[in-house]
């Protein structure tokens, strides 16, 4: 994949990852906010709905209780008024009977004997009075008491047409003065048979006896009188000069009375309203049937099978007030009740629970509906955001795609230029220059390439020059090596007096070792082996100089056995102008071919080996301590002498032999050299001994590269003469 494509994808990937991460965070944040808002909204809606429902319920209950209390107060006032009215009637009669002198006798039509119209006062004699024959006896009283008929008439006028009621005085003496209001459509008062029965006697009524005993007005229970309708009466005692004389009463049809109460302020509604007396009996009710209907059955609600209702009926008789939920015939109602203190009754009103709950439920449903609408709007809002984000993402990706291609292309352009330039340079065009001025790493790299190209060009030019120079030096070194090699004697005379052979294997083209041999006269052979410090041209020059100086001085000195003098003079000569402190180790000997005497002197060189011809034993020659040549002027050298026997061989060598190393860096060593020489065949020639040693050194080196010049010289004394 190309760099441009990689950069393109990298940029695209990076921005996409960042954007996606940002989007993910935003999305989850948004989603979280949405969820939180939805959840909170739902909770708030539900909570508000619950609260509103509860509040509405509370309000309804409170209002319902207030209504019950208000109506109870109204009924209380009505009952109080009825009681006062009854007391007034009683008081009027008492006033008449106790002040008879102020009234004229008056006769009222006798009920049962003449037709009595509704609202017309009449008098009725109880069966017991008639049969007793005392009517004429008490007639004066009757005539005076009949004056109360006017107040009765006046009293009933206040009631609506159709209201069924009776205002009456029931005398202790057995007569009744009464005004009856008949229901609509009934013109005359009906006197039923029961009226004329001896059993009909108000004085036998419980409440008659009660007021007679207590002197206080009371409300009766519901009873069905001779008139045939259920009624309730308020009765009060009246008196004459002798005491209790009878009772005044206002007796109302309970239906009429209830309607009267409704009309007077209780108001009409769809609720079930009822009044419970102290005995738990419904005495007035808006209902005509059912357990809440008033009847003469005198059913005690406290004994109702509806437990809650019975419990609350008990509370009602205890003159408490409350709003409770009761169940009647499987249906739930709110019952609000409040006491009617004047009579010790309790007003109760029932309303269908649904009617109360409905507004609260509507509030709740409205709020929940609003909450759902809010949730839906919120979800729609978030969907819109997501949609817009997705569209924005697509636009950004498209833009990013375009920009990434442009940027990566622009970024890679210098790299391509660099690549093409480098290819051209690699093709050998070192004059190629890269002109990339981006000011960044690529530009810097291009500059580096230009510098590298210049350097490479210079280097190659220099390399060509150095190579040429080196080749020239190599050639010169080769020539020098050839010259050096040419300086070494290659012709090895074998005149019968001695056998000599020498080799020099340089480690480098131009080494520092040399050997030399030459005849000083017909009886003296000089042999030299030397090792110049260092290698190379310098060493070669010093070697040739040393070789020449030694040979010259050896030739100059008349006394051929004073080798030490040769070394001393050569040393002084070599010290001259030796600014580089070059030096040479030299072993030089002179063999008298006639006697075998070998005079030698050493200048810091390795001790040579004497191999005895008779035994083959090799031993190092004793050497006098002496310094290398070229370092210090005017130092002494010593001569040593030995006499060689025929077959004895002097073996000269440089440290390249004894210090030849194998791959383990182990030296060939002086001991090894001596053993090799000792183990050589007894009648070995100089050339053969060098061959043996060379082979041994080669075997020891075992392929290791030669690190120093290996120079050897074998001189075997023969003395055939």
């Amino acid at each position, binding site marked *: 994949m190309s760099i441009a494509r990689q950069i393109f994808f990298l940029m695209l990937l990076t921005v996409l990852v960042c954007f996606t991460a940002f989007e993910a965070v935003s999305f989850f944040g948004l989603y979280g906010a949405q969820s939180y808002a939805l959840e909170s909204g739902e909770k708030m809606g539900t909570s508000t709905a619950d609260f509103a429902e509860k509040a509405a319920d509370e309000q309804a209950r409170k209002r319902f209780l207030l209504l019950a209390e208000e109506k109870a107060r109204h009924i209380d006032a009505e009952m109080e008024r009825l009681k006062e009215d009854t007391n007034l009637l009683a008081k009027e009669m008492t006033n008449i009977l106790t002040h008879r002198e102020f009234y004229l006798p008056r006769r009222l039509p006798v009920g049962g004997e003449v037709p009595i119209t509704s609202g017309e006062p009449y008098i009725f004699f109880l069966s017991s009075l008639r049969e007793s024959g005392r009517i004429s006896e008490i007639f004066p009283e009757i005539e005076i008491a009949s004056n109360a008929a006017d107040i009765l008439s006046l009293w009933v006028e206040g009631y609506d047409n159709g209201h069924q009621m009776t205002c009456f005085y029931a005398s202790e003496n057995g007569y009744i003065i009464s005004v009856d209001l008949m229901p609509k459509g009934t013109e005359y008062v009906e006197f039923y048979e029961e009226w004329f029965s001896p059993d009909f006697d108000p004085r036998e009524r419980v409440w008659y006896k009660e007021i007679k005993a207590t002197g206080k007005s009371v409300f009766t229970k519901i009873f069905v009188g001779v008139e045939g309708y259920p009624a309730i009466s308020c009765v009060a005692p009246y008196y004459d000069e002798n005491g209790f004389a009878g009772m005044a009463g206002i007796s109302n049809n309970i239906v009429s009375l209830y309607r009267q109460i409704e009309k007077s302020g209780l108001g009409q509604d769809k609720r079930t309203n009822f009044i419970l007396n102290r005995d738990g009996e419904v005495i007035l009710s808006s209902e005509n049937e059912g357990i809440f209907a008033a009847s003469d059955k005198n059913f005690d609600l406290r004994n109702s099978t509806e437990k809650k209702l019975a419990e609350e009926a008990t509370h009602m008789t205890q003159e408490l007030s409350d709003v409770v939920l009761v169940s009647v015939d499987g249906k739930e109602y709110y019952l609000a009740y409040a006491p009617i203190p004047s009579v010790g009754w309790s007003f109760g009103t029932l309303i269908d629970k649904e009617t109360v709950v409905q507004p609260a439920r509507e509030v709740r449903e409205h709020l929940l509906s609003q909450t759902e609408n809010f949730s839906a709007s919120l979800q729609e809002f978030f969907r819109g955001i997501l949609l817009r984000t997705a569209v924005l993402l697509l636009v950004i990706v498209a833009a990013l795609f375009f920009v990434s291609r442009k940027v990566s292309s622009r970024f890679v352009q210098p790299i391509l230029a660099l690549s093409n330039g480098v290819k051209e340079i690699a093709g050998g065009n070192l004059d190629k220059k890269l002109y990339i001025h981006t000011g960044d790493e690529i530009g810097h790299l291009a500059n580096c390439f230009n510098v590298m190209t210049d350097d490479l060009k210079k280097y190659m030019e220099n390399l060509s020059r150095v190579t040429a120079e080196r080749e020239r030096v190599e050639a010169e070194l080769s020539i020098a090596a050839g010259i050096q090699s040419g300086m070494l004697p290659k012709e090895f005379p074998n005149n019968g007096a001695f056998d000599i052979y020498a080799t020099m294997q340089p480690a480098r083209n131009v080494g520092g070792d040399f050997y030399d041999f030459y005849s000083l006269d017909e009886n003296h052979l000089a042999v030299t082996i030397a090792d110049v410090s260092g290698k190379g041209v310098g060493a070669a020059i010093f070697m040739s100089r040393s070789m020449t100086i030694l040979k010259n001085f050896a030739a100059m000195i008349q006394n051929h056995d004073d080798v030490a003098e040769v070394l001393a003079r050569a040393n002084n000569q070599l010290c001259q102008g030796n600014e580089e*402190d070059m030096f040479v180790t030299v072993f030089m000997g002179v063999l008298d071919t006639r006697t075998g005497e070998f005079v030698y002197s050493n200048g810091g060189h*390795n001790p040579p080996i004497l191999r005895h011809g008779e035994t083959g034993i090799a031993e190092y020659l004793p050497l006098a*301590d002496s310094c290398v040549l070229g370092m210090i002027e005017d130092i002494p050298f010593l001569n040593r002498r030995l006499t060689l026997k025929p077959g004895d061989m002097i073996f000269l060598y440089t*440290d390249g032999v004894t210090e030849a190393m194998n791959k383990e*860096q182990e*030296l060939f060593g002086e001991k090894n050299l001596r053993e090799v020489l000792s183990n050589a065949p007894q009648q070995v020639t100089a050339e053969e001994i060098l061959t043996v040693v060379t082979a041994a050194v080669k075997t020891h080196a075992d392929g290791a590269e030669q690190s120093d010049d290996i120079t050897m010289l074998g001189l075997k004394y023969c003395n055939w003469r």
Partner: protein
Amino acid sequence: MEEKISGEIVFESRKEKGWTVWALSGSMNVNTSTKTEEAGKKILASTEKLAIDLAGLKYLSSAGLRVFMRFGKQAKKEGKNCVLVSAKGIVADVLKESKIDMVIPVKKSMEELD
């Protein structure tokens, strides 16, 4: 023209008994002598008393020998003390055979130094 390096050389210096002790370890041949000479010149220039400890030196060629001789001559010229100490084996033999002690003092151990 390539020449195999037959051994490396390692330098260490320390102070002992008022001397700057320059310890050489390894092989001192034509390949390592130039480096040794350059390093030795610097250390010689920095001290009045230089002891070249050769206890760790396993091989000494003529090129190396030349370096020590130059150190000896340089020290003598500058009035400084420069000695070779603790040479062993073949190195000690080379020193002895070359009579280098005529140019630079050779001591068997540090104990022989003042």
